[in-house]
């Protein structure tokens, strides 16, 4: 009793003192035939101290804090769902609780399979929104397109966020990498960068800009034939 209460008091202070910061990395490799692989990484390592402090508490700002078992169960559930989806294979997931990094990766038969799985997963978690970007690969024309529309719903949800939650998004980064077997001839989004070997396009932006609709992550990439 004596140790627990003061420690929780201290941990609350830890949560108060530390700035939270995290990165989301979306890494997609598209082969010539339109098949490929995707890896999603969420890295909370920079906020390790804060997350550790938060996880000791039952709830923060009235929201329940999930424990390790719950997080693992959710990740496994997501992986299990992916395995049942058409065109999706080689599903692996990993949660590193020392550094608070979660990754999920899988192979797809066709680029359109990514669109289907996002839709299904969002529906599964009762998210009825057009938040997801759509991906298209035209083998004949050798073009890869990501179409992203910032929907009114997202804007509405964003506006509902409290200032402190908006600040968390300001400190978080979103990184998107597209890799190809052919070299990239041109790309439409000037905020993106081309790798020196011309086989990859990367865009990095604060997550806040993406959610608030300030940034555009749409891109039309023309590949050499």
């Amino acid at each position: 009793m004596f140790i627990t209460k003061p420690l929780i008091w201290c941990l609350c202070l830890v949560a108060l003192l530390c700035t939270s910061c995290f990165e989301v990395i979306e890494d997609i490799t598209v082969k010539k035939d339109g098949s490929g692989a995707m890896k999603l990484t969420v890295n909370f390592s920079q906020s390790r101290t804060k997350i550790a402090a938060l996880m000791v508490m039952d709830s923060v700002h009235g929201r329940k804090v999930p424990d390790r078992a719950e997080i693992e169960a959710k990740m496994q559930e997501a992986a299990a769902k992916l395995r049942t989806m058409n065109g999706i294979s080689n599903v692996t997931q990993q949660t590193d609780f020392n550094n608070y990094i979660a990754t999920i990766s899988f192979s797809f038969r066709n680029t359109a399979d990514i669109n289907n799985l996002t839709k299904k997963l969002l529906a599964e978690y009762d998210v009825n929104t057009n938040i997801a970007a759509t991906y298209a690969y035209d083998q004949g024309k050798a073009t890869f397109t990501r179409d992203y529309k910032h929907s009114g719903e997202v804007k509405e949800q964003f506006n509902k966020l409290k200032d402190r939650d908006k600040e968390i998004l300001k400190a978080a980064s979103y990184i998107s990498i597209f890799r190809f077997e052919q070299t990239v001839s041109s790309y439409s989004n000037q905020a993106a960068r081309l790798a020196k070997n011309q086989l990859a396009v990367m865009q990095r932006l604060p997550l806040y800009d993406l959610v608030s609709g300030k940034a555009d992550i749409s891109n039309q990439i023309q590949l050499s034939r």
Partner: protein
Amino acid sequence: MKRVLQLVALASCTGLTASAQQYAYKIPENAFTVATVRGEQLFKLTSVKNVNASVFGKKLLKELSSVSNQDIKSIDDFGLNLSANIYYYNQITDSIDYNCVLFPIADAAKFNAFMNNGSNPVQARNGMNMSFRSSGKTLFAWNDQLLCIVSGKQQYRFFKDSTTAARYGIELPEDDYPVTVDVPYNDDGAATDDPYATVDTTVAEPETAIMYPDSIPTVVPDDAPPPPKIDNDYYDYQEKDRSYERNNLIKDSLTMKWVMNTAEQLLQKQEGTPSILNNPGFVRASDPAAAATFWLTDMQSIYSSFLPYSMLKYGYMMRGYGSFNSRLYLGNEEMRLTSEIGLDEKKAEIYKRISNQKLNKKFYKYINSDSLVGFMSYAFNTEAYMNELPGLFTGMYGKYDEEMSIAGELLSIALDEKAIAKVVKGDGLFLLSGVSKKQVTYSSYVYDSETFEYKDTVKTKTETLPDFLCMFSSDDPRIIEKMLQYGVKKEKMTFKDGIYSVEETRKMPLNLHILFKDGIVFLGTSYKEIRSIQAGTFKGNLSKEQKALLTKSNYAMFFNPKNLRGVLPSGEPGDTADKLRKLLDGTGNVYVTSTSIKNGYVGFDMIADVPKDKPNALVYFLDLIEEMTQLN
């Protein structure tokens, strides 16, 4: 002349006492909780204009405008007496729970106009005006002097009883009972399922609509005839649905009837009749100097009321505890919340023995008041507590009392109270001394500009972490040392120069260092601090006020927001951190202390200092709410 003055003094004092309680005599003797807000005390500290202009006031006016469908510009627009006592009480019966608010009226014409302009119809009955809210379960009833808001909630279990159900014509799902009570009808004679229509019918002519009892039923008579049974095996889904609706209609009509009766009884109740004023616990809590008071009937009744009747035999956990009360005092220099709970003689004796312990005075030299963010201290007698354990178990589990008593005795035999008290004497002090900067590592990625392939990399950053130091007395810490040595052997901690250290872990993001010195076990986050305690070079500086807090109470807590603000890292980005700093800047010190047993009551005092730039506690409180809403 002296006699005349005495008479004048007596008359004015009597007047004061009477006005202090005002309409408390309306509250039933068996109320469960009572809360009182003393408008007179509040408006000594602020004005109606200031309340209207505050965030809280604006929100209230907006809410009221929206509820009443009228444009309300000031809290004194309705004709209510804002300088009088406002009472809220809760009453529990076996059939219905009531939540009631009593609000004195200053200007009946103004209040009538306000209610008549609202969206809910107003009707007159037996010298009172009344208006049901749309739910049909909350009634506003008033005369020229008093507004009573009565809200009723049925007891779920009440209608589950077959005899009660039959009495009111409720059909229980398992058995087929005929409907013995007519469902309310509209003027045209058609059965209605519109709750509004039900409100009107019941309110206007309740007696002709349904034959309900005149008073609230509490017990169903033993000689009540068993309900007649009809042989009918067929019960389709639709019929069940209809039956459910019929039942609800009857239950809702009953609620309305009972709520109406209660409001009528409240308005007609005369001074001198049995009331809550006969309850010494309530009278004790009703301090006229307090801005608000809260009183809760004895804890055993609460505990029992939340348990189903069949479980009552197990429920004596709160035996020995009396009523609870809280009083809020708003002054110019401080805001004080005093809370206390009654104890019976036996419990009071036990408490006295357990609290017969003082904080180790050696702790004082490790306190630095100038930079201290907060502390928490406690001093209880471990040996007395261990000795009292069997006694504490007795009476708690009702039916299993004897078994629990034996278990308690066995525990007492198994444990060596004296030996335990030597290891942990029962006093402790926790100090939140400030914060320190620390380099922490984290995983990130480096991207190859050639291919955008990324590799894991370890980066470092500076974080600000709280520093704390806690200590407790131990005359014989050998067992603790043995446990720590076991931890060292298992490589969970290290031991160097007489200090045990635990590195931060996933669950505990702070380093901990443990030292044994002068019969005190120290546990702290700062190695430097622990080293200076070990070397005897620690420089403490305890203020008189804080020393008094630690010496006088068995339990004390202190928090200095300004010192926390001083140590908040300057690198915190964003508005929230700035707002938090502003909030901490404008917040005074907060203290909590336990009070010793007085007239069979034991409790806590919470005091918040009013900052010098605020005129009084109420203004400070309203400003604080405003600052806090800015944070969200």
